[in-house]
């Protein structure tokens, strides 16, 4: 039995694959415009390298593999110097207090009434605001893990990071989110 050979039909890419690719991208980068740009870049790159397509994978699988590379390129870009400076520390990084809470960032008690307010619309908006305030790479990893429910292993593979690396980022994102929610919501 001959193996099925796949053929590319670039004229139909936008109609057939753009929604799928867009949802794939937005689950990872959490930003409408950025996801759209990545999809567009994927089509462009696909068109440019169409002659290298061997027909072994389906058209969509092939496009997804290009998109995955675009996403990792984006992650590396935000992981470079720019991303590093923005992090607010919650713990002393060195000295005799290394690993202890920085005084002004020690968690404060919250108003207990907040326990009931999880379905509150304003609370949700506040959360979106706080997530948007995170440095982009922390927002990306946090969202993939917490909101999109990706497996740790999958995130590590897609972004080419180690699991301890991932947990440090999740930890920083969560401590920073906690502080932001405390300052803006729970201590009114």
């Amino acid at each position, binding site marked *: 039995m001959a193996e099925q050979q796949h053929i590319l039909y670039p004229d139909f890419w936008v109609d057939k694959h753009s929604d799928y690719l*867009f949802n794939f991208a937005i689950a990872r980068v959490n930003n409408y415009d950025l996801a759209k740009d990545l999809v567009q870049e994927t089509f462009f790159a696909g068109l440019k390298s169409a002659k290298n397509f061997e027909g072994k994978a389906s058209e969509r699988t092939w496009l997804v593999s290009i998109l995955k590379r675009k996403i990792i390129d984006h992650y590396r870009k935000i992981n470079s110097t720019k991303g590093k400076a923005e992090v607010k520390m919650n*713990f002393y990084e060195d000295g005799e207090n290394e690993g*202890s809470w920085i005084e002004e960032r020690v968690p404060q008690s919250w108003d207990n009434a907040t326990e009931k307010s*999880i379905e509150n619309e304003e609370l949700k908006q506040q959360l979106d605001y706080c997530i948007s305030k995170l440095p982009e790479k922390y927002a990306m990893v946090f969202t993939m893990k*917490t909101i999109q429910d990706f497996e740790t292993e999958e995130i590590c593979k897609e972004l080419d990071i180690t699991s301890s690396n991932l947990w440090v980022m999740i930890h920083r994102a969560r401590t920073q989110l906690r502080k932001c929610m405390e300052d803006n919501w729970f201590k009114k």
Partner: protein
Amino acid sequence: MANKFFISCDEATTICDKSQYKEASFFEIIQLKLHFLFCKVCALYSKQNNFLSKLYKSKATNCKKQSICISAKEKEEIKKQLEHLKSELS
């Protein structure tokens, strides 16, 4: 040996965050519980963390309900640019 059991607040809260996804190891949980015995701040962090996890989960449920699409207008835009690129390539 002592250091294996006595961890810093930074390490404790990292384990606490990990445990929110049920991915902390048994030994890490022991380290964490031990830390809580003498660190009330991290115990408070943990309590608040549970609340925040519920909040994140409710956001996740909302997010999954909606599938977002690129608008028809934007699709046409991408198509046009693809056509343009194609004529350039050939």
